[in-house]
């Protein structure tokens, strides 16, 4: 993509201001150290509902949600600005479940009624929505063992989903279940519906999640999201966006881990000099900086493309998520190594980054899966 055909990769003045404000908010209000607190008390929520509400009041949750649902009607690009900052402190708030999965599924496939019922609540920070798609027995979201059997006035869903992000906390769950012929369909299910049970799970990265079991859960015909039997294609489109949004989060996390490491390299002295004066570490730090600079270009482009060139989204989603996964994990490993002994202690924040890095690496496709899809998209 040459200079004059590349999408615009710059922030306008409002976006720069948004970035700055979000940066300050996150660094001040939502330090990564919170993750240990939530973990140690086995917090039933795992994040701060107040902070989520505050972000809603600042308009950040509704950035991309259309005016008609009380959002600001801006772009996915704007949302990514906030997501990037959320990554700096590894915020466990429900960005992925609600803004990247639930809201995108509704925006892309929801009926007017479904959107109306939920999107305004999402923008207001009052409603949480997640998508339940992971199963124990399958690593391919196109193949589901959860089934939705046609009933007199709708469907009955039975099955189990694992690691549903915020699954025990959300108001509504969009679940993939096999309908006639085995192809998945997405259904919008009220979390309080009879037959839905959740069990909280505890992951290394502190992202709230749950096992969600569906036992003959009755849903009406109008609970289908998108088209019957076409859930896989819709999910793929949702994942493409979610992957880009998550990549923005990972970009922020990588940047902060490097920033913390650079600060440590300048401050920590051994052999009577700052360890950052050792050339071997300098060159490795430059390698990290370089990877992050590439990642930044790619994330900005992918976010822009979601708003402006829908046909290019799959290509850029692969690119952004593959690079984000490799870069974040690499940065996180090097950050620990350069911190030395304290880097592996639980009390220092830098070790939290590798846990999020591993979790995000495994979410919405590993790099090799994205490279395979990229190759297919390029015809080889």
């Amino acid at each position: 993509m040459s200079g004059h055909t590349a999408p615009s990769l710059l922030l306008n003045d409002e976006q720069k201001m948004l970035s700055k404000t979000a940066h300050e908010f996150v660094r001040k209000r939502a330090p990564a150290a919170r993750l240990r607190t939530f973990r140690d008390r086995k917090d039933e929520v795992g994040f701060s509902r107040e902070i989520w509400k505050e972000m809603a009041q600042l308009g950040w949750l509704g950035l991309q949600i259309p005016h008609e649902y009380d959002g600001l009607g801006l772009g996915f690009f704007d949302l990514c600005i906030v997501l990037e900052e959320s990554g700096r402190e590894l915020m466990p708030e429900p960005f992925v479940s609600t803004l990247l999965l639930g809201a995108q599924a509704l925006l892309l496939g929801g009926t007017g009624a479904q959107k109306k019922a939920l999107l305004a609540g999402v923008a207001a920070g009052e409603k949480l929505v997640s998508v339940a798609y992971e199963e124990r027995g399958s690593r391919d979201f196109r193949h589901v063992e959860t089934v939705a059997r046609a009933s007199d006035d709708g469907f009955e869903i039975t099955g189990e989903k694992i690691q549903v992000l915020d699954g025990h906390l959300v108001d509504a769950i969009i679940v993939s279940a096999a309908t006639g012929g085995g192809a998945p369909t997405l259904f919008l299910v009220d979390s309080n519906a009879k037959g839905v049970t959740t069990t909280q799970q505890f992951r290394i990265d502190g992202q709230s999640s749950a096992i969600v079991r569906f036992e003959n859960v009755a849903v009406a015909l109008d609970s289908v999201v998108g088209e019957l039997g076409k859930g896989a294609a819709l999910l793929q489109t949702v994942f493409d966006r979610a992957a880009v949004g998550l990549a923005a989060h990972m970009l922020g996390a990588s940047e902060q881990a490097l920033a913390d490491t650079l600060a440590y390299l300048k401050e920590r002295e051994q052999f009577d000099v700052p360890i950052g004066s050792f050339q071997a570490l300098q060159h490795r730090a430059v390698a990290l900086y370089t990877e992050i600079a590439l990642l930044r270009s790619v994330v900005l482009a992918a976010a822009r493309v979601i708003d402006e060139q829908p046909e290019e989204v799959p290509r850029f989603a692969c690119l952004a998520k593959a690079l984000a996964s490799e870069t974040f994990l690499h940065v996180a490993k090097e950050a620990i190594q350069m911190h030395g002994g304290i880097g592996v202690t639980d009390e220092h924040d830098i070790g939290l980054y590798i846990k999020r890095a591993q979790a995000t690496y495994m979410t919405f496709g590993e790099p090799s899966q994205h490279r395979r899809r990229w190759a297919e998209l390029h015809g080889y």
Partner: protein
Amino acid sequence: MSDLNIFREEARAWIRENAPRSLWGTSGSGPFEGYWGGSKDLEADPDILGWRDRGIEKGWTAPSWPKEYGGGGLSVAHEQIIHEELKAIGVPRPIAGQGLAMFGPVLLQYGNDEQRAEHLPKIARGEVRWCQGYSEPNAGSDLANLQLRAERDGDEFVLNGQKVWTSHAHLSDWIYCLARTNPKAPKKQMGISILLADLGTPGITVRRIDLISGYSPFCETFFDDARVPAKNLVGELDEGWTIAKAILGHERSSIGRSIARQPGSAEREVVARARKHLGVGHGPIPDPLLRDEVAGLGMLEEAFHLTLARIEQSSKSGTPGPEGSISKIVGSELKQKRFELGMKVAGILGLGWEGPGFDDDDLEYTRDWLRSRATTIEGGSSEIQKNIVSKRVLGLPEGKK
């Protein structure tokens, strides 16, 4: 049949007769694997305690130490045969740990008779457990920068400062540590002494350190006007650095080897995880990229073990090559790669910290993966090892740092 061969038969017979069946196959029989003794970590298993007692009786808790100090009075060659025969059936040494493996030999070489008589028998009988106080917050890679102050006051030294990474200090009775006895010495390697301290001494407190993987045996040990008898000085005053370096060298060369598990085990472990998590019971791993990575790991593992074997064979033939210095570097990288790949094949099922939805094996594996990040840091970081190889093996000029 040579003396040693006869001894091997005797040792084999005695071990197989005396080691409780329940312990067979439970251990790699290394110097740090098994029951560490001491007054704080009480063991309940009667088989373990019985085996300890048989070992003490026989003098084989410390086979090569003099009998007067509770040892077996045997040669190092005899001792090695005992350990090989233990390893052959996977039985732990009757007692293991720092005291026998690290501190005892130091005292034998550098201590005085009074110190030996006081401390060695208690170690050989597993009554007193020791830990090591080396690193400090500002003395990691640059260990000689240590600042724990020991000031002479009459018949005592008064200790003030802090040690870190004092493994198992919370379960130990005594600590041997490096302290700065002369802060005015012209070089920081000078003015350091080795002192022994009872961890029950007023002013000494121990705080556990958790790692990113959770619980760990590491501690911080604080000294606040802790008074230690002057007779607890090992070796000459202000000349402890030479001893410390010898211990460190020994430690480094043993770490690479200690990382080495059964040859092929890393590869088999990852293959087993791939089969479990990818749902393929036999035949080729279906993802060719993963299969290629596993084979790369297996090859690295084999190359590492062959290199360890070569080093061992060379040192036996009296011409040790310089390759020994790389075993820590390669061993720790191998360990990290193993866990990284084992995590990769597990996908999101490797993301559990605790609780429902994750099985115990996966939870433990994930903790081990996190723990493995420390492997390239502890015991001399890879960067320090590379500096050493660069200078001592490749002869590259010292940087101005």
